[in-house]
């Protein structure tokens, strides 16, 4: 559908705001990590280091330059894809992070593909037959899933599927995931756990957003035109609830990249969240900064995408 110039101006503004936010966030990330206690050179050289050696290393690493110029250099590096080298194992951060990010994104993609259609269907169906047995069952289930911490879900899944039933491997990342069946088996448990955690919130928000639009006069008008319940909800209520639903979905999904540390730990899945925790333990500053930036970028792009969808679905901006 054709959209007016103002719509695109608004979308452009939203993207601009996202970019500015990203710069501010990178500033915060850089200086927050700078403020971590301890001198990097001393830590790297260990307790036996002579002051001369420490000074030499500081010089070599450029740590004596003012913080702000280092920040600009770092930001420039990020923009050109150079994230620096890891302090601990002297590998390019890009290589280290790239592999892990691939793993994380793959897991996130699988979970998204399963949980978004599932959650939207459940939420819309619950709203459509509000107060019915289905609605109450969905409500009770989502509340109980939200209330149970995810390590509990993950541990229970391991206990049931790996220990008692023995259907699935307890660790999801073996090197031998060569066959398709083995791949599905490896992914099954983290995906189930994450789907539970992520979709519960989505279902509740979708249901609330759709019910809110069902109570508007124009949906009652559709009823008085003789429309079926299905038509009322799908044709009249849902398109107007798109904005809030997109935002709820984006918020839930943003959790999948950076917030899944527990699931990654329980199932020993090598994703970015685990990488970051390891980096913090070893004080690997470039790695910490890069991980933090990856989380921010994924979060920002999801939220921005949701806002853009909300803007585009607003008929008042159409021409």
């Amino acid at each position, binding site marked *: 559908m054709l959209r007016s110039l103002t719509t695109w101006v608004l979308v452009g503004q939203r993207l601009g705001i996202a970019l500015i936010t990203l710069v501010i966030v990178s500033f915060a990330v850089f200086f927050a990590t700078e403020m971590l206690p301890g001198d990097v050179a001393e830590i790297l050289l260990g307790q036996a280091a002579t002051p001369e050696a420490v000074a030499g290393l500081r010089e070599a690493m450029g740590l004596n330059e003012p913080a702000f110029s280092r920040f600009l250099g770092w930001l420039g590096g990020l923009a050109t894809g150079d994230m620096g080298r890891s302090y601990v194992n002297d590998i390019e951060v890009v290589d280290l992070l790239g592999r892990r990010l691939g793993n994380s994104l793959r897991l996130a993609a699988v979970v998204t593909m399963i949980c978004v259609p599932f959650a939207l269907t459940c939420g819309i169906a619950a709203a459509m037959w509000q107060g019915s047995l289905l609605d109450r069952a969905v409500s009770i289930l989502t509340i109980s899933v939200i209330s149970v911490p995810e390590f509990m879900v993950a541990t229970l899944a391991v206990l049931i599927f790996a220990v008692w039933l023995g259907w699935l491997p307890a660790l999801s990342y073996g090197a031998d995931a060569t066959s398709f069946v083995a791949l599905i088996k490896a992914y099954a448990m983290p995906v189930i756990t994450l789907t539970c955690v992520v979709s519960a919130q989505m279902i509740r928000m979708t249901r609330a957003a759709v019910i809110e639009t069902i109570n508007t006069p124009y949906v009652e008008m559709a009823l*008085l035109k003789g429309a*079926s319940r299905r038509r009322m909800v799908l044709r009249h209520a849902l*398109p107007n609830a798109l904005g809030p639903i997109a935002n709820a979905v984006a918020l839930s999904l943003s959790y999948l990249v950076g917030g899944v540390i527990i699931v990654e730990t329980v199932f020993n899945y090598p994703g970015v969240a685990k990488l970051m925790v390891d980096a913090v333990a070893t004080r690997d500053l470039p790695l910490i900064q890069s991980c933090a930036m990856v989380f921010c970028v994924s979060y920002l792009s999801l939220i921005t995408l949701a806002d853009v969808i909300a803007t585009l679905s607003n008929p*008042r901006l159409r021409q």
Partner: protein
Amino acid sequence: MTHPLVSVRDLVIGAVTDSGREVEIIRSVSFDIQPGEIVALIGESGSGKTTIALSLMGHCRPGCSIGSGSISLGDKTVTDLSEPQRAALRGTEVSYVPQSAAAAFNPSQRIMDQVIEVTDIHNLMPRKEAEEKAVELFRALALPDPDSIGQRYPHQVSGGQLQRLSAAMALIGDPSLVIFDEPTTALDVTTQIEVLRAFRSVMDHSSMAGVYVSHDLAVVAQIADRIIVLKGGEIQEVGSTRDILENPQHPYTKELLAAFDPVPFVSARAQDVERRKPILEVKNLSAGYGAVVKGVPNFKVLDNINFRMERGTNLGVIGESGSGKSTLARAVAGILPRYQGDVLSDGEELRADLKDRTKDQLRRIQIVFQLADTALNPSQSVGSILARPLHFYHGLDRKARERRVIELLDMVQLPSNMRHRLPGELSGGQKQRVNFARALAAEPELILCDEITSALDTVVAAAMLDLLKELQRDLGLSYIFISHDLSTVEAICDEVLVMYKGKLVEALPAASMSQDAAHPYSRLLISSVPQLDPDWLVNLEHDPEMIRAMDGR
């Protein structure tokens, strides 16, 4: 006598309140509607008129249900049908014109898609044919650009046009009964006439029967053949339109008619007015909204307004919606800072922004908003709402506040134990009184009343006006009374300002408004107020040039 089209017998509709109690909101109502006849259901809010009208479609709002009785429409008994069978009737046998078309149109669909949706739901005709029929209806309803208006979205057309479009939506399925649910209540008087004319001409040229729900007898008089007067879910009186207007039997009907009688207004103008400075003087006032560029806002609303009002007099401000009436009140109060001009009270300059005014200046001018529902904090008791200005302006301690709250409630004729209640537990009229008492708490000299009776029923509004007059006598107040209802303004004001598109068109003495009006817009506005005479609309002739100038709104 032919077989009636609609026959309602002993209808009882029950509702479950929030506390789970069951109440009967419609009690044993029976009436018939003949084919082609237009019957009006008239009554105040809560009288059950919309509930009855919706029940004819087999629909009850959530929480309500048909208890007993029967409704038959043609050869079908609506009360015995299943929900899918009722849905099959809606749009084809009986259709609905909503109160607020602006809310009843889906904002995300084109108008045409919504107008012809009935034909799609019930598989009445192919899309192309339906669109042609819709365009014909648009033309019959005197809509501008009938060929292309359907391609627009609801927010792109005006309120009066939407209301006519919603009539097209109701008529597309050729129903035998159309329900009009207060279809002109939300419109300006000048727009209301166009919409009423369009409805009448369409109904005159068809054999459809109609149910016209309204609280306004004068509007109903123009369109209905027969009137049913409702109160508290019961029928009070039924009769032909002329009989009800000229020879009412029931006391409640008489009360409704009495609200139309002109009320003599005695000015409370101060005696020593010559020696004192005017309570409000406005010079070259301009104000607007939006980003300010070079001291001028992007959206200018008020353009160079001048007037003065003497102490103890009341000033009415009339005009259609969007003419800048409320903005004028906001600019005088300082809620919206003016960008140009002066506002003086007692000869003392009031700063543009209310942040820059002294506490005493703030105290002297109070504003009362139209909707008490949104102006009163729903989670605070009436007592604490009234106590806040007492503390702020007068620094009263807890005991003195309590005493004063009781006094204030007494002034607005509410019982003192009402101070413990929440706004949500009060009726509309009571809430508006509390809203007004909140302004009184400051002990002001001038009260800006922004459409404070517009959301109230006729009888309740009349009582509110009496209260205002009484308080004016006792406390020496002055009012600026903003309203789109000319009879209200006539009943309480000394002088009336007519506003149009942000400009002050004319200042008229209220008592001789209709004779003295010189500007064509004032004349149009004044002549557009519906009269109780059933022939009024037919005989009304408007200056065609002015109508054309106003078109496209």
